[in-house]
């Protein structure tokens, strides 16, 4: 019997992937482990290998198609076998996203775990466990074609009741993001026409709805249009999510970098000789920030649902500009690394990011991020938090400025630091204390060497 080849879910945030290239024609033989096609996710490009041996019977999508997770991309089976003419709809994806995200299935190809397989059928079972639901809840699930497993039950042991199903139906008519934007902008979701599966309202539908037709700029026939997809779309979605969900507050402080410059000058040849890489201010910042996390655990935290998770590890995310997007590789256990090692790791990660060769593991697990625009003519800016982290540090350029020291005007190399924090998780005072300590540490940087 022909086997379905699914769009794999390669990260918890992946909803769809873009088909970049087919390596096989319909009718071509396929070996186990042989790449069949390549996809682009919101983070990486990856070749999807076959789990089955046989013949590629059907290609359901063309190159450049954006395909939802769990959608059937094609079929592999014996020559001459019948397969469906049209791909079955991967209807459960929208509502199942959170449930199906069974972690980072990096490298897993072709055959996603059973619970990730989307289906319009009423699916009662999660893997190994029967879903608890009352007969009334089951009836609603049946009538409304809702996946019972995707609904949170309010009863004993998570038993789904009829009302749970009705609540879920109401809420799943819109994606969470669309719901949030609609809420913020006072838009009645009932008035918005949904373009998603089963008429589900998506973010774009709400935005379209809120922009009056007259206010929309007249289309310029010659303008180049770039579709938001892949990494660009992921960045766009994440930024909207972050700014719409997180109450950002940004604190700024000017730091006298005189001594940091001296330290860097002194260490540069030593580290370069040792690692082959030139230490930059970024690594010094990583070092300084990491050292302070013990004393400021709220800054090194994640906000997950109603819980603030105080992370034990210090994994510093480093925002790296790449072609058409922004990637934040993770410098793991930064607090345990010396400047030489930090230099090597961050330079290596930066290069891998630019070469699009980061593994999912190298892009996840951040507990705090640094965004450095100091190489540009930027004095300060408002960095946007990378959820679920609770804070991010924005770094401006070092520029000589007149400062008053002991009643005298002196020219000093100054750098502005901007700390954006999630006011749900941290208040102003502890965030300010962190930034003050950071300024203090940078102005007296010899502590970094301890």
């Amino acid at each position, binding site marked *: 019997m022909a086997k379905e080849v699914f769009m794999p879910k390669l990260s918890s945030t992946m909803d769809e992937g873009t088909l970049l290239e087919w390596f096989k024609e319909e009718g071509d033989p396929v070996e186990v482990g042989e790449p069949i096609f390549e996809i682009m996710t919101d983070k990486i490009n990856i070749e999807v290998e076959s789990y089955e041996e046989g013949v590629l019977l059907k290609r359901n999508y063309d190159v450049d198609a954006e395909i939802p997770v769990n959608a059937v991309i094609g079929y592999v089976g014996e020559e001459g076998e019948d397969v469906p003419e049209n791909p079955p709809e991967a209807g459960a994806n929208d509502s199942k996203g959170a449930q199906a995200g069974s972690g980072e299935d990096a490298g897993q190809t072709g055959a996603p775990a059973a619970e990730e397989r989307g289906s319009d059928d009423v699916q009662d079972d999660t893997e190994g466990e029967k879903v608890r639901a*009352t*007969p*009334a*809840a*089951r*009836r609603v699930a049946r009538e409304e074609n809702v996946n019972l497993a995707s609904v949170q039950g*309010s*009863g*004993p042991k998570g038993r789904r*009741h*009829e*009302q749970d199903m009705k609540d879920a139906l109401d809420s799943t008519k819109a994606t969470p993001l669309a719901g949030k934007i609609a809420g913020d902008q006072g838009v009645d979701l009932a008035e918005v026409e949904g373009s998603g599966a089963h008429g589900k309202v998506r973010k774009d539908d709400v935005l379209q709805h809120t922009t009056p037709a007259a206010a929309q700029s007249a289309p310029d026939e010659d303008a180049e249009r770039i579709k938001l997809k892949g990494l660009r779309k992921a960045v766009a979605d994440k930024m909207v999510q972050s700014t719409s969900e997180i109450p950002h507050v940004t604190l700024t402080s000017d730091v006298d970098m005189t001594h940091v410059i001296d330290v860097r000058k002194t260490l540069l040849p030593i580290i370069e000789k040792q690692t082959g890489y030139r230490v930059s201010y970024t690594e010094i910042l990583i070092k300084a920030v990491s050292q302070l996390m013990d004393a400021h655990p709220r800054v090194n935290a994640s906000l997950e649902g109603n819980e603030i998770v105080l992370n034990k590890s210090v994994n510093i995310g480093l925002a790296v500009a790449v072609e058409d997007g922004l990637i934040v590789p993770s410098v793991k256990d930064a607090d345990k690394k010396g400047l030489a090692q930090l230099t090597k790791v961050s330079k290596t990660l930066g290069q891998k990011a630019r070469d699009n060769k980061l593994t999912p593991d190298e892009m996840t697990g951040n507990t705090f991020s640094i965004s450095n625009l100091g190489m540009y003519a930027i004095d300060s800016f408002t960095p946007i938090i990378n959820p679920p982290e609770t804070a991010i540090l924005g770094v401006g350029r070092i520029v000589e400025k007149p400062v008053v020291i002991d009643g005298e005007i002196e020219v000093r190399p100054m750098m502005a630091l901007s700390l954006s924090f999630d006011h749900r998780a941290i208040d102003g005072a502890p965030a300010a204390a962190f930034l003050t300590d950071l300024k203090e540490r940078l102005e007296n940087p010899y502590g970094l060497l301890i």
Partner: protein
Amino acid sequence: MREITYSEAVREALSQEMRKNDDVFILGEDIGVYGGAFGVTRGMIEEFGPDRIRNTPISESGIAGAAVGSALTGMRPIAELQFSDFITIALDQMANQAAKIRYMYGGKGKVPMVLRTPSGSGTGAAAQHSQSLEAWVAHVPGLKVVQPSTGYDAKGLLKAAIDDDNPVIFYEHKTLYGTKSDVPEEQYSIPLGQADIKREGTDVTIVAYAVMVPRALEAAKELEKEGISVEVVDPRTLVPLDKETIVKSVSKTGRVVVAHEAVKRGGYGGEIASMIAESDAFDFLDAPIKRLGGAESPIPYNPELEKAHVPQVPDMIKAVKETLNKA
């Protein structure tokens, strides 16, 4: 409307039927001058005389047997047992004879009798005088089983039972005898197999009969203060059971508590619960069916223990809340 007690309503039904039909007579222990263990037939011997208000020896088997025999010969006897517990002695007559004769003789003989008997606890009458054994007789095909909860229902249902050409076990609850309700003087009967919605509600259905009905109504009143709307359905007759009314109510509310005084294990509530689970109401159930019944022990003599043995109003409130996942 005139308000009379439950026992007066039963007496009125008996008297009206006896006046209408000379074939109707009553037999039982001390029902004549004494007026019966609970005074239901008090004064009747003066109007109808000892031939029709017929005292019997202390022999429940004899009372039931005589009733079966006279019914077969064309009379319409009403047998009274002083306590429903004594049906054990009359059970051969009722279960092996009365229930089967019409079937076994191809309809050529019929047993139009009523066996009236007080049931239930609450009077401190201890283990042999306080039971609710309705499930025993409800199990036997051929017997009809009635359990009225109000004087109005008792009068109307008793008249229907006397009219019925089949043996009917008619349970009267001891503690209901003194309760008053509006009962019309005129002749009326309530068909067997017709439940009554004692109170309308939307959140949960309590199916209760006999003394559990006033308790369910009181519980509903309390729960209403917390915004919980309870529908109370009184089947009134267990056999035949008005499945339609129960199914309709449960389909509406999605939740059900079945309450009776009889011991929960093997009680008639299990029959009602199974019927609901087998019916169209299944798809509307939004919680497991809850049964409330008596404890698995003989009924204690001590009044406090006796009270604790059977479901009371707080038990019903708790059960309803559990069903609504609000306990």
